[in-house]
Every structure is written in C-alpha cells, then in structure tokens.
C-alpha cells in the first residue's frame, strides 16, 4: 500500500536489464537487450530522454547489454557488458551519433558485470560467465590483466571504493573472492558466502567501514562481511523473501541496504541491519522483477529502480510503505485451561513521546494517542524535514514485544447453600473464565437414571443438589421442577405398568434399590433442602426392619405416588391419568379453594405451598410427621430470582392477568398460575412447553450444559419424555456440549453423552470406533451373546474360525488385542508372549509396526 505520492516513473517500452547513474546524479543510463538510453532526471518533470545510444539497424550482439556502468570519475565514460562476451566503452562527448569508444571482445562468454574504478577513470573491470575477470585500460583499449577465478561463472565484480587495488568478485558456485589487481596470479582471499549463486555484492560506501561487503544470493540471504587481516567474518545477515539479485548500501545511512529480488517478488526493499527481519521501507510498484537499483548519491532519500516490465522509477523514501507499521504486532488468546496470553508492542508509547510537536507529546501515550498520531503523520510528510525519518527509524528499531500470560489462580468460590444464593460477580467471572463449576457438574451429573437405578425424581433431586453445589441455583431449581413435572411420565421400568400386584412391584424395586443404597445415602446426606424430612428416614436406615419400609417409601415418593394402596393402583394406568394428583387437587380444593378469591394472589401462594410440597415429594407417608418448618423452607427456596425470566412466559400461557413482577413474586407461582378450576389438567398440557422454554432459555443464556443434560436425563429412561424441540436444535446443543466436554478433556462424560444421545448425527460419533465382528466363514455378524464365535459354531467349518488368537489358535472370549497396523491379534497374554519371544530371538516382529 502506498503512502503519499506515486513515484516518478517512465516506461521505456522494453525490458531493462541494468541502470547506472551519472556522477552528478542528474542523468541515468539504462541498458537492455535492444536498449541503451540516457535519461535526464528532474523531480518536477520526471524522466526526459537525453540520448539514445542504440542507433542504427545493425548493431549485432555487441549491443545486447546485460550490464551498464557509468564512470564515477569521468562524466563522459559509460561501459556496457554484452551477452556475446564483448565489453563496449562509450564516450558521450564524442561528436556525432557514433559514440563507441572501444569494443573489447575478449571474454568467451556473456559478460555479466562491468565496473569502473572509483579513482582511475580509465580502469574498468569485467566479469564473465567464462569464469574470468579482466581489467581493461581504456587508454590501451585492451585488457591489462586476466584473473582466473578457478571457480564458476562470475556474477558480480566491484572495486573497493576506498582500497585502491582491491576488488571483489562473486561466483555462481557460492564463492566470493577478494583480489588485488596488481597480483593476477591468485586471489587474496576466498570463501563460500552463500548456498548457490552469489548474484550481487556491494562494498560499503563509508570510509570507516571500507572493508565491509554485502553479498546477496540465491539462498534468499543478504550477508554482510567484514575483513580483518584478510580473514572474512560474517557480521550480519538479512533473510529476505526471495533470491537477491542486487544489493546497494544506502549512502549516509551505514545500517541501511536496499535489495531487489530476481524473481517472484517485484518489490524494492530497504532493510535496516538493526532489525533485519522486517523491511524498513517497501516499494511495491513494479509489475515484473526489478533488475537494477541505484541510490541517488547526492540525496539518499531517493532510489532509482528499473524492471523487466520496462519501467524506470525514482522512489522517494517518504513514499515507502512500512510493513512494520501496518502489521498487527499484538496477539491475544484465551485458553480453555484458563490462561490468557497477551503480547503487545512496547514501543508504541515511545513513538508518541518522541513527537516534537504539540503538548500531547509530553503526556504518556494513552492520553494523547490520537493527537499524537496526527503529529507523526504531518512530520513525516514534510519532505525536507530532517525529522522526516528520524522518529520513524527509532520507532522501527525500538519495536519490542512484551509477552505476558495471565494464569488463573485458585479462587475460592463461595459455596451456594441455598436457592437464593447468587454468586458474587468475581466468582461469576471466574466461573466463566475457568469453567470450574461446569467441569464439576459435568462430572457429577447422573445422566442415565435407568442404569443408575434411580427414579426420575431421585435423579432430578440428585442433579439438583449437584447444581446447587456448583452454584447454579436456577439450574437446581429447574431440576426440581422437572422432577415435579415428569416423574409420572418417566419411569424406571417399562414393565412396571403391566405388573398387577403393587406389592410385588414394591418388593422388586426395593430389591433393586439396595444396590444403590449407598448412593442414595450420600444424596440424602448432601441434601440440605429437605434434610428435615430426611432426617427421620436417615435415622431409620440402620434398623433392618425399617429399611424395607423406608425404601418403599422412597420409591413411592420418588415416583410421585401416594403410599395409600387405593391410589397406588391407578397411578401408572394411562386411562386414569393423574389419579393421585387429581385426588390431591380435590383434597386441596376442599381445603383451600373455597377461600380463594379470583384475584387474591396471596391465597394462591398457600395453595402452591401444598402443591409444591406434594409435587416435591416431601410429603411424608402417613405416620411420619413433618413439621411445618420444613415446608416453609421449601417454599422460600422456590422464591428468588427465577421468576424474573419465567413468569412472563408462563403468564402468556395461562392467559391470566399478569401481576407485576416484584421481588416478592414466586416462580412457582408463575409456573402453576393457572385457573384453579382447570388445574391440574392444564399443567400437563403446558408442562412440556414450560420445560422447553426453560431449556431454550438456558441455551440462549450460553448455559448449554443444563438443557443437554436435562434432555438426556429425560430420554434415558425406558419410558422417555421427548420434549417437542426440533431435532436440529437438539443436535446443535449436543454437539456444542460435546465440544465443550472435549475441550475440557472430559472423555468419559463425552462418551456418556454420545451413548445416550438419540440424535443420529451424534450417535454416529461413536460408530467410528465400533467394530462389528463377522464370522470368517459365513461373514455373518457375530451374536452379541457369544461374540467370540459364530451362531453355527456346531457346524465344524465355522468352529473356532470367528475370533481366534493368531498365536494359540483358540477363540478369544475376552479382550481381543490386535495390532492396528497389521490387524493380527489375539489374547493379550499371547500377544505379550509373542513380542517377548520375538525380542528374545532378535527376530523382527511380523509386521513393520511396533505392535505394542
């Protein structure tokens, strides 16, 4: 991207191979295959043609220029290198059109480079593909010395601007040689500078660094060498993007160097050795590879470049783009483990502080940022200001990154003991950053109530406790509510509906219960809400007589049944529906409804007190007294913030006049706020909707765990309740939740969810690691009951062919261990023995894979 103006440019019509500036920098000579022209350079008028040296039709190969050089001593001397091996010298002062001074056809192959001596106008050196360099004296019009490189073709040759007798040459095989031209028998020094061709070299123009040489090569590197006692030393390097075809030191800027590349990259880059990885300035205007560059010696803010597309340009440094400025030099990342990594550039503040204008520069960056920026731009756009590049350079060089990692420390979240407890904001942020509670809950939640032998209500109760421990009050409450809503629909045992005898069932279930007794005891201990009620039970656990009774009771209340035998029978019968509850309702209406005026909300609260008490299954069986204290606690527990979300929704449903939602409102009031006469039937109609809405609400609030776990829990029973939520949505939820579980490396929980999911796409996740075994003979799938042998194993052919150990040839009944590479396998012990045997005998294991 260009800043400011376009460069001064001209298109000369054909490919340019090289350029050179006149002594006073007012003219530029460009050379190409059929091109040799001199242009006047003027900043206002641009390039104007001064002289065309390519005249006449028959110029021959002598005029096919690969390089051009203009003497820095004599304004009138120009030399070109021809592809046929000739070096042509031109005298611009010659009268007429014919300005050739001499044609020095001594090289046998293409001359790649010509270079004038910096002090002797008549000395000219050339390098050729034939592997020699020749020193010409233009007075003699022939070569005075020939330097046999004994290396490869010469790529570049240049006199040292300060050491009178020295010149350097670079070669296709990666060598650089230093010669003293008085001694053509052998070089002073030679060394391997690059991998591959060294295309270019440039002596440092400063006298105090006279023995510093920059080289550029095919290996994309620019290297800076210094020589002490004829021993080379690499003092710096610049890794560039592509092979370097030309390097040029910037005059008066000892640390800056310009490069162009041979292919792919069409830009001109200026590098600062103080920061070698990022171009200090970048010009990207050529449409093809730039072939030559030259700094304006009198004003180092300008650089000339020519390119294969025929463009000759003069770039001003102030127009350069700064890749360093445009880059985002700051990174920020959040880790699933609770880290935050942040890197930022430290020099930003420094830059603005250096701005010499305006009071804003006196203030630290954060106060005067935008004003400071403006100052900077203005200064840089003043072309002749000495400040034009100084701040930019120091900004460029001072750029440093600061890299910090924020580690989450252990923060003791206040435990949530009540439904009304709400985590303080710190723990709230902490939870969202570290997901500690999410992980806790994901581990603790029981999803599959059927296999854990918990009734749905028990499951909900347990999970509610988990949610409470995790500080998720709303979730805990929703679990309770789900238990209330669906305990009659979601049953532990499908066959239970068919069992005639209630007593038999009870016994059966209590048998089952015993296995999970410990679990339940834990639950009960953990329970804080209904501990009052449970205390009585707890104490009775130890008496053998009491045990069965208590368990029966637990089963009953968990399944929402009344313990009275007459109600019990009707409970599971769909025909009778809500027998138990209906009778409850009647019971209630006898007691309470008669007192309920249509608009008296306070009275309704009393109704719910009982209703919730019943729904929540904390009503004791007859014979156990419950003090009103515990009921009160449950009621208050249901109060709180929940109403803020659910009340409006349920209000719509129940189409009753919506009361103003104030602090004293109760969520359960909202949920069961239906016209008393229609109750409880409407509850059954709307409960699924309410549950759906609640789950969708959680999903929208970014709590994906709750809806997924609840849905899974509800569908994990033999008699599942499938909420009318779109399957795409469920799939979306489950896949999102699985993703989070995977992020936290909760693989067991991940597998559980996949197993319980009823969404085909999610179920498919487990199929990738499931193998179905087939009989080797009949290809039929092996039965799940005897997965080690075929159904027809009595038939001799099928005998032992199914899953046999490759080592002992016997069927494998238990774990089948196999090599994933060659698929040979068998008993684990056999495999181990086999490998041991192989290692002992030093024979290779059958396959190339290392089986274990």
């Amino acid at each position, binding site marked *: 991207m260009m800043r400011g103006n376009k460069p001064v440019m001209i298109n000369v019509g054909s490919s340019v191979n090289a350029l050179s500036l006149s002594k006073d920098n007012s003219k530029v000579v460009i050379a190409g295959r059929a091109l040799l022209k001199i242009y006047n350079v003027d900043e206002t008028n641009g390039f104007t043609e001064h002289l065309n040296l390519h005249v006449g039709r028959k110029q021959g190969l002598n005029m096919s220029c690969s390089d051009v050089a203009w003497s820095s001593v004599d304004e009138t001397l120009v030399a070109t290198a021809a592809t046929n091996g000739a070096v042509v010298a031109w005298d611009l002062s010659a009268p007429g059109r014919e300005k050739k001074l001499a044609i020095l056809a001594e090289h046998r192959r293409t001359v790649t480079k010509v270079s004038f001596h910096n002090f002797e106008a008549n000395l000219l050196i050339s390098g050729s593909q034939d592997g020699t360099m020749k020193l010409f004296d233009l007075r003699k019009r022939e070569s005075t010395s020939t330097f046999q490189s004994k290396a490869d073709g010469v790529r570049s040759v240049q006199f040292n601007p300060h050491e009178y007798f020295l010149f350097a040459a670079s070669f296709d095989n990666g060598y650089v040689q230093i010669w003293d031209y008085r001694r053509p028998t052998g070089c002073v020094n030679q060394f391997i500078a690059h991998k591959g061709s060294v295309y270019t070299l440039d002596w440092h123009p400063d006298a105090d660094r006279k023995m510093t040489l920059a080289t550029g090569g095919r290996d994309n590197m620019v290297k800076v060498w210094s020589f002490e006692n004829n021993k080379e030393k690499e003092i710096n390097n610049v890794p560039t993007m592509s092979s370097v075809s030309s390097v040029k030191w910037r005059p008066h800027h000892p640390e800056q160097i310009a490069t162009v590349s041979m292919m792919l990259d069409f830009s001109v880059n200026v590098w600062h050795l103080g920061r070698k990885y990022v171009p200090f300035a970048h010009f990207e205007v050529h449409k093809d590879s730039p072939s030559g560059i030259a700094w304006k010696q009198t004003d180092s803010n300008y650089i000339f470049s020519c390119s294969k597309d025929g463009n000759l340009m003069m770039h001003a440094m102030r127009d350069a783009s700064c890749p360093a400025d445009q880059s985002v030099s700051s990174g920020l990342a959040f880790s699933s483990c609770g880290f935050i990594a942040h890197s930022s550039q430290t020099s930003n503040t420094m830059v603005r502080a250096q701005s010499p204008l305006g009071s804003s520069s006196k203030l630290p960056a954060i106060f005067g940022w935008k004003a400071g920026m403006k100052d900077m731009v203005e200064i840089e756009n003043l072309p002749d200001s000495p400040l034009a590049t100084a701040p930019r350079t120091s900004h460029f060089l001072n750029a440093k990154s600061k890299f910090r990692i*924020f*580690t989450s420390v252990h923060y003791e979240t206040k435990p949530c003991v009540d439904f009304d407890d709400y985590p303080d*904001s710190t723990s709230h942020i902490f939870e969202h950053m570290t997901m500690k509670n999410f992980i806790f809950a994901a581990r603790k939640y029981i999803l599959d109530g059927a296999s854990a032998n918990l009734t749905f209500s028990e499951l909900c109760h347990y999970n509610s406790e988990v949610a409470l421990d995790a500080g998720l009050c709303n979730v805990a409450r929703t679990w309770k509510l789900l238990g209330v809503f669906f305990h009659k629909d979601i049953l532990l045992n499908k066959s239970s509906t068919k069992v005639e005898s209630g007593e038999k069932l009870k016994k059966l279930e209590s048998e089952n219960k015993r296995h999970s007794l410990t679990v339940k005891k834990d639950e009960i201990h953990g329970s804080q809400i209904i501990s009052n009620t449970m205390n009585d039970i707890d104490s009775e656990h130890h008496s053998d007589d009491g045990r069965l009774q208590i368990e029966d009771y637990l089963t009953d209340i968990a399944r929402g049944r009344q313990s009275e035998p007459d109600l019990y029978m009707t409970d599971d019968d769909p025909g009778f529906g809500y027998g138990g509850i209906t009778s409850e309702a009647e019971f209630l209406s006898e007691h309470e409804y008669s007192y309920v005026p249509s608009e008296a909300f306070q009275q309704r609260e009393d109704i719910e007190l009982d209703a919730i008490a019943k729904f929540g299954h904390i009503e004791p069986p007859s014979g156990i007294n419950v003090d009103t204290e515990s009921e009160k606690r449950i009621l208050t527990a249901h109060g709180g913030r929940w109403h803020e979300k659910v009340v409006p929704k349920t209000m719509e449903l129940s189409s009753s006049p919506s009361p103003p939602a104030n602090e004293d409102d109760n969520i359960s009031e909202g949920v069961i706020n239906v016209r008393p006469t229609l109750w409880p039937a409407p509850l059954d109609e709307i409960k699924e909707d309410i549950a759906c809405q609640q789950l969708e609400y959680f999903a929208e609030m970014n709590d994906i765990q709750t809806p997924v776990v609840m849905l899974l829990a509800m569908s994990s029973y033999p008699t599942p309740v499938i909420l009318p939520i779109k399957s795409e949505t469920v799939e979306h*939820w489950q896949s999102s939740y699985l*993703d989070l579980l995977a992020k936290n490396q909760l693989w067991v929980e991940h597998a559980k969810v996949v197993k319980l999911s009823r969404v085909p796409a999610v179920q498919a996740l487990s199929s990738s690691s499931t193998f179905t075994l087939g009989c080797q003979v009949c290809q039929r799938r092996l039965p799940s009951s005897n997965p080690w042998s075929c159904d027809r194993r009595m038939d001799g052919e099928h005998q032992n062919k199914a899953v046999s150990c490759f080592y002992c040839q016997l069927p494998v009944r238990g774990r089948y261990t196999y090599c994933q590479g060659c698929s040979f396998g068998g008993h684990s012990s056999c495999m181990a023995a086999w490998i041991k045997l192989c290692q002992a005998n030093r024979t290779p294991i059958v396959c190339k894979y290392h089986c274990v």
Partner: protein
Amino acid sequence: MDGCNALDQIYMVKRINSEHKDLLHDVSFDFFGKRMATCSSDQSVKIWDVDENGEWHCTASWKTHSASVWKVTWAHPEFGQVLATCSFDRTAAIWEETVVENSSSQTERVWVHKVSLVDSRTSVKDVKFAPKHLGLQLATCSSNGIIRIYEAPDVMNLTHWSLQNQIQCKISCSCLSWNPSTHRNHLPMIAVGSDDPSSSGGGKVFIFEYNDQTRDWSKVLTIMSMTDAVSDLCFAPNLGRKHHVLAVASEDLHIFTIKPSSNETSTSSGTPPTYNQVAHFTDHCCKVVNVAWNDLGTIVISSGDDGHVYLWMANYLGIWRRVGELKKDLSPPSDMASPPVEKSDLSPLPVDGNRINFRRFTQGRAPPTERPLDPKFAGAYY
C-alpha cells in the same frame, strides 16, 4: 465490595521472555488450551507447552517463512497436531508435528512442513481452520482482498490441499473468522474485516455464506456502520444459541449479533442475515487491536494498541459492560531467563453487587470514559 479487584483475585500475570528476535504478531492456543504457538517477524514459530505447575516452556522453534509470520492457528486435534501459518512472503503453510526416530533410535517430535499454499500474489494476512464439522478446511485472506478456501480432501494427507473457492473482497483484508456454529441449518459463514485506512470506503466487515446449491461463497452482509479499519474480529463460540455474536476490534470495540439467514424451508430465496449492534465501547483510548472470546462465548477479551486488556461481559439482560481490566505494567522489560512474577495491575469499574451501573451504547459514539490520572503517569515524561 470485594468485586473492586475482581480480576486481581483471579489472574496472576507472568511475563515471559519469548526469545523471538522480532515482534510477536500472534499467539494461539490449541483446542485444549494446553499448547501455545507464537509467531513473529523473525520468521519463526515457537511452540510452548505447559507443565503441571502452570509454567510454559518452549518446546519447538523453527523458521517457517521467509518473511514476517502474521498469524498462527491450530487445527482441531482430531486432524492431528497441525498448525497453519501465514506470512508477508505471500504464502500460507501447513505444519504437522510427527514422531520420528532419530539416529540414536530415540523418538522425538518434529514439526514437518506439509505444504505451502502459494496462490496469493500479496501478503497473506490471516489464516483460520474451519470448525471441525466442516472437515479439514482452511480460509486465508490476502492484503489484495482475496479470500481463499482450501480443503484437504484426504485428512490423512496434509500435503494435498485443493483451492475450493476464491472470493474477491476488493479491499485489503486483515482478518477473518469462521462461524463456529454446528447447527444443521446454519450455513457455513465467514466474517472478514478490512484494514483499508480510508473511512469513506463503506463498511469494513463482510459476512460471507456458503451456498450448497451454487457451491460457492457469496457476500450476504456488509456491516455498513463499521467504517474504520478493522484489525481483528472473532465469532463467539455458538453454544446452542439461535443467533451469532461477533466481536470486532476497530477504533473501538463493537459487538454485533447476527441473525442467521432463514433457510429452514430450504428454498433458494432465504432471507439474508441481519445484524444488530449490541455494544459499542470507546473505553480503549486507542485502537483496539485484538479480540478473543472465552469458551462459553460469554466474555470478550479485548486489547488495545497501548497494551491494555479489558474484559467484557453481558448481564442476564444481554447488556454488555466492562467487568475488569488488566492494565499494562510499566516496569521496564526484563530480559532475565526466569521471568518475575507480578501481580496484575487491575482496576475494574466499581461494581454494585450484581446490579451494575452499566451503560449501553447502541447508537453513535459515546464519549470516552473519563479516566482518573493514574499516579504512575503523573509527571511521567518520556
């Protein structure tokens, strides 16, 4: 109120000497957050692994490109330990960590160059892997405004990537983000931000959607209100939400919700997505350069050009507010091998319990928050 230094209690800041020889441009955690990759102008990428004490150690470092490496990103671990990098040298590259046996028959892990994607003619500014459910896909964006979508047809062969689509964005692109939603009806979506400096150039954030029928990506939305250069943008993890949330770092921090196009009837003419700006914060007194989300998509972390890091969170009504700040420590950079442990310098806004005095900027630009003069700054002249 104990919330007055909330993040102070949660986060401990640790300066790490990255030993990169030039500016760091990007830092990226892997899927599990236990590995970290950094990239720098020094053309190299470093891999960091965390030990059980929470200390990060550089376990690999190698030269990746021949110019500044702008971005580094991890593929989903399902595809292996795979990195993608993009660079000023106009390429993007894929790297895979493989176990090799060295000469002394010990196994060691090395990062192997798999492929260079060389289609771009200009600097590749960003590279991102698609969410896992879209397969092994990769999007790159270049500074000449071309977005390219690559796909590895065979996930076992990372050396072969085919260029699936090429989208012209016309103005210089700086950043992109895939929509991570796994919803069946949400079309694959990419948001692209432009760093074009001219503010007259119209919107700088574009949303592209993939159309299954035409098998092509098309621009479905331009956020016209974003006229400043965008330096970073990021979709929030979509955890079952119906809409998408996009955080944009520009001159200021913006948060948008994007309602996906309704193609549930799968007719060809679904309504295009719509957007709504839900937050606009000018609290950063400079350009906002980076945004990141937590895993739940509930907290936005943003960093400014001056090194300040803010945390933002929405309350239960969906109103965003600032919840904390990790201020840049002003101590001179230490070059010691063992970085000193510092307490983060934090000053979150006063928080009144759960009810926060939040502001909501939905229209126009609100005046920047007035900030008290930090005693550290008073009289600090550079």
